């Protein structure tokens, strides 16, 4: 086991170091794309194979311990890793989807001058992510947590010659740091509580935290605050209100990065954290906060996604919205459903992002061709990020594009009709669209339906207020179907809208890019059968049995309504919802998806109507459409308050204060001494006889004192 975990963790970091160092110092090595990419792919594929081995031969949870990281006083943190149902599932997702995306990147990044950097960062990311999901203690998890943040920073700002990308990277890292701050505080509270109560050496390890007697310590307000702080940490990493603002900007990174980090893996780590500590969270009394955050985020992001024209932005807001669903699930104590949705989402969203990458890739060829023909002005900016100098913008206002502004390979308004040119991409994108929209029997249908069902059930058995969240979830489901169908139609259906469309054609991407698409599309189709709803039988849901446990086997993830977890769960245990109602809800879910898809298809006349349909929507729903297209003012709000507060405060208050008051005080003291000296210097006349007189007077005075006093 020790060796196997080593085989999971070490290849990514070793290859990252090798590719990074060789690339940094040897320009010749940078050109060996196949060697570089192959090594990087192997570094993820090997852990995937090992994980599969462990997964299929799984016999029980095990903790593997290597060496001590931190040790002082009562604190002792080991590099220890936990192999259990939850971590194995997550590792499968990370390395499996990771392998596919590495393969895809070999084609996508071809010819980029930063090829070596890209793969070094990507492997480093895999290492950090594996640390995160396999960690046995909170500090090691935090190591991975911040490590993925670092890689996210490096990859968002990958094309650093464009300052916008670097700014997005900074934003991502700093917003995440806000969450990390809360995470750190949560760790401090847990440490103090446990050490004060139990004494002895403690390393914030899950084995101790999740012991029943330890959990009892967190039943009161302590547990509430710990959970709230962890939730803030999770909202940072998993892009929930109030810290979601970095994720849409993070789309500045290369598309495979968006797929891997900002859709499939890193952003789910907040969920993973909550699921890992689910027995604590379940009992904390803070569930309603989690559920509310999730539901509000889900619907907010869904409304924004409808209004976006950048294909990656649509997917980004869609990710935020789907993550909201997962939080909603966690907020009703159905952590396993959240993880189920993490998995299905990883499949279809990775597929969607990679598909969009494929589209962008070919639209770049169109762009180059158009530049070559002189139909649009050429730019010298970074990869896919046009210059926006004012002069250039002005010339572009006369470009034959369906909107103002420069040609943008990511803008859906220049696309249309791509299905003819890129059949694989179109089909896989279409399947994933149906999956995320909740088309019956595809993966998203099962996971989303299970979430809504659990919210409904929790509303029935725990608190009626959850029914409102259930309604929010239903509306979000309709919106999801609409915006994803819209994205598909605008991109692939109808007729091409880029200039010179008759003679300038995009091409299907190479096999390294289409193979991952196909594999992911297949997974997106069948993945849902791992979590069949209970109407199909008592143990129909494999993932429930795997994560929560069945019979008398207890899994790692708590469930508010499962009798197995009655020792932890403060909620009533009977299932209040009959099979009949459950069937009805399934039907409702299917109907909603179909209605949403149908509405979008009708509205866009199956792609025949392009951006003009959006303008129509803007006219009709202006009251909602305009604020939604501005992301409900979140960014403006943060810029006006925190960002401006810090920047202006630092520049206009603190720096002058330091210069004038603190240093001014010191210099004032120096000036005081100087001033006093200026007065006293008058005594020093320079005339020797004055000094002599002073001596004489002094002597006389002393003698007088001696004689007469």
């Amino acid at each position, binding site marked *: 086991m020790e060796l196997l975990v080593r085989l999971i963790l070490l290849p990514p970091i070793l290859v990252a170091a090798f590719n990074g160092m060789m690339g940094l110092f040897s320009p010749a090595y940078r050109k060996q794309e196949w060697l570089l990419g192959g090594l990087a792919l192997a570094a993820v594929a090997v852990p995937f194979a090992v994980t599969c081995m462990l997964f299929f031969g799984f016999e029980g949870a095990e903790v593997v311990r290597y060496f001590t990281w931190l040790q002082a006083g009562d604190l002792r943190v080991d590099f220890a890793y936990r192999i259990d149902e939850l971590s194995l599932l997550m590792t499968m997702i990370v390395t499996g989807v990771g392998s596919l995306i590495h393969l895809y990147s070999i084609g996508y990044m071809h010819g980029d001058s930063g090829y070596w950097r890209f793969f070094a960062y990507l492997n480093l990311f895999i290492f950090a992510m594996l640390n995160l999901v396999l960690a046995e203690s909170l500090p090691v998890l935090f190591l991975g947590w911040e*490590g993925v943040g670092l890689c996210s920073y490096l990859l968002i700002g990958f094309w650093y010659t464009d300052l916008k990308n670097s700014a997005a*990277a900074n934003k991502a890292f700093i917003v995440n740091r806000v969450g990390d701050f809360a995470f750190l505080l949560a760790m401090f509270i847990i440490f103090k509580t446990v050490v004060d109560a139990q004494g002895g050496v403690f390393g914030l390890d899950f084995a101790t935290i999740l012991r029943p007697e330890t959990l009892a310590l967190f039943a009161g307000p302590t547990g509430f605050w710990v959970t709230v702080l962890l939730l803030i940490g999770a909202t940072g990493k998993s892009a929930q209100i109030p810290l979601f603002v970095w994720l849409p900007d993070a789309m500045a990174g290369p598309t495979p990065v968006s797929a891997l980090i900002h859709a499939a893996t890193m952003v789910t780590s907040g969920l993973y954290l909550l699921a890992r500590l689910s027995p604590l969270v379940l009992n904390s009394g803070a569930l309603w906060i989690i559920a509310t955050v999730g539901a509000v985020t889900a619907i907010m992001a869904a409304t924004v996604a409808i209004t976006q024209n950048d294909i990656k932005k649509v997917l980004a807001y869609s990710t935020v919205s789907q993550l909201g669903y997962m939080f909603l699930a966690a907020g009703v104590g159905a952590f396993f459903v959240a993880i189920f949705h993490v998995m299905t989402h990883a499949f279809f969203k990775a597929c969607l992002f990679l598909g969009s990458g494929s589209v962008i890739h070919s639209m770049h060829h169109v762009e180059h061709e158009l530049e070559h023909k002189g139909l649009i002005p050429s730019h010298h900016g970074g990869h896919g990020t046009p210059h926006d100098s004012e002069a250039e913008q002005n010339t572009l206002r006369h470009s034959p594009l369906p909107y103002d502004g420069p040609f943008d390979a990511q803008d859906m308004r220049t696309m249309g009709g791509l299905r003819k040119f890129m059949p694989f991409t179109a089909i896989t994108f279409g399947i994933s669209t149906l999956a995320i929209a909740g088309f019956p029997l595809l993966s998203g249908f099962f996971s989303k339906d299970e979430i809504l069902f659990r919210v409904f059930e929790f509303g029935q058995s725990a608190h009626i207020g959850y029914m409102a969240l259930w309604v929010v979830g239903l509306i979000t489901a309709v919106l999801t179907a609409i915006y994803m169908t819209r994205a598909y139609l605008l991109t692939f259906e109808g007729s091409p809208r880029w200039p010179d469309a008759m003679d300038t054609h995009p091409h299907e991407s190479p096999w390294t890019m289409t193979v991952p698409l196909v594999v992911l599309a297949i997974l997106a189709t069948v993945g849902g059968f791992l979590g069949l709803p209970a109407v199909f039988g008592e143990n129909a849901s494999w993932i429930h049995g795997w994560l929560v446990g069945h019979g008398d086997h207890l899994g790692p993830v708590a469930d508010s309504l499962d009798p197995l977890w009655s020792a932890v769960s403060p909620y009533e245990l009977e299932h209040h919802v009959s099979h009949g109602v459950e069937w009805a809800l399934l039907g409702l879910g299917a109907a909603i998806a179909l209605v949403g898809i149908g509405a979008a298809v009708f509205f866009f006349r199956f792609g025949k109507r392009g951006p003009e349909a959006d303008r129509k929507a803007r006219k009709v729903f202006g009251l909602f459409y305009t604020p939604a297209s501005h992301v409900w003012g979140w960014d403006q709000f943060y810029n006006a308050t925190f960002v401006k507060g*810090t920047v202006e405060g630092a520049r206009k208050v603190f720096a002058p204060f330091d210069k004038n008051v603190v240093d001014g005080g010191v210099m004032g003291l120096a000036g005081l001494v100087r001033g006093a000296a200026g007065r006293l210097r008058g005594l020093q006349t320079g005339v020797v006889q004055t000094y002599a007189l002073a001596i004489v007077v002094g002597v006389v005075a002393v003698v007088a004192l001696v004689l007469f006093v």
Partner: protein
Amino acid sequence: MADLPGLLSLVIFLPAVGALLVAFLKSVDAVRWASLAVTGATFVLSLGLWLGFDPAVSTAEAPQLATRLPWFGSVDISYFVGIDGLNLLLILLTTLLGPIIVLSSWTYIGKAHRGYYALMLLLETGVLGVFAAFDVFLFYIFFELTLIPMVFIIGIWGGEDRVYAAIKFVIYTLVGSLLMLVGVLWLGFEAGDAVNGGVFTTDWYKLVQFGMPLGLQYAMFGLFALAFAIKVPLFPLHTWLPDAHTQAPTGGSVVLAGVLLKMGTYGLLRFVVPFFPNASAELAMPIAILAVVGIVYGALVAFAQTDVKKLVAYSSVSHLGFVVLGVFAFDTIAVQGSLIQMVNHGLSTGALFLIIGMMYERRHTRAMADYGGIAKTVPVLTFFMLFSVFASAGLPGLNGFVGEFMILIGSWNSPTVGNPLLVAVATTGVIFAAVYLLWMVYRTFFGEVTNEANTTMKDLNGREIGLLVPLAALMLLLGFWPSPFLAQSERAVRSLLETSELKAAAVESAAADEVVVVPVAWPDEVALTPPPAPAPDAAH
């Protein structure tokens, strides 16, 4: 372990001898190579200290590899140097930075080479003496000895405002240290009367046993803590630092950030806490508040800087706030964190100053606005910069996190400074650190190359890479595997805190003006924490 009593003194004085040698050399090359050889030899010899040090022996039993020679006949002042868990790592950090500083000055220093290298070597002796001294008077002499070379290094080889900065530096620190001299003498007489049969004494061990009445403790605390607080520097006594850092040549900045500031925090830990435990505990909260204000304040002011060196200088104010917080937490984890954080800050901020020096050597400017986009022209430099930036920002896996995490988690548990609000504010330092450091990287390294002069900037040469690699390697090592380093100080820190508590309790229970003698009864039975058996069934 082999007992090599002379080794420590050799390490301390070898650079001084080297300084004499260097002063008589003619050619510039000979001066450089001789300095490199001397500092290199010092480093190699100091590794012997690590090998000879036994972490299981607490400070109480004896400082290790110690030398104790009587100095003045009539009073109890001696040349008393030794190694214990508190100073071992700092001494090694100093000797490690020695050759690195010499190498970094290789082409940077353009005039009066002999003087520069001789002063640098003399400075190294001073710093080593400060860390190794077990006699307060000896400590004071070394403490002042570091001042003189540094003043000249800033004042002669510094930037455009060098004389202003040098004078500010010398006056600021002298005010503190002269008050400390008063404290040393006063304490020596009082302790002599109380515990040494009327003979003036500055022996560390005797002073530790001297449980002085509360009033005296407060007075002494004021005299000593002020000197160290200026050196650290603690908010609001920090304004000499940005000037000194900005004006000093690279080597000076590195030694200043790397080790000189640590003399302040080290002094607090070595002298103030065990000598005046009651006063320290009582005044821990005000000091901790200043430290935490410094953390946030330093970060915000750093963010407003346009001069990259000044930015890093203010970041030192912020980072050392953490160290002071930890020192006054009276908690093993926090104090251990402080010790390791001193080393960490020396490594990462030292590296930052080295890299900025390399940039300055190429472009002769420190203004961030003059750079921009240089990641493209100097990728290797950028790599090392990012590495050091993230180490400095406390990214787990690199060294900065280890210290900060331990300080904060220890302070949260601390009996003296364990106020959740205070520690929470301190923790915001991790956000701000990311803000100003990433802002600096953003402005300096990313974007298009806009300034023509930057297009021809040369990347690092072999010498420069060679001097950064050991620092980077140590940052990584301390980030992933700090436990061997922590183990060196575990026993020393524990016994220090236990003695302080013992003494504090004894003074507490004594009558108002009574002098208590607390025999150094460091509990010997305290063993190193045994590793817990690996939990066989961790699941359920």
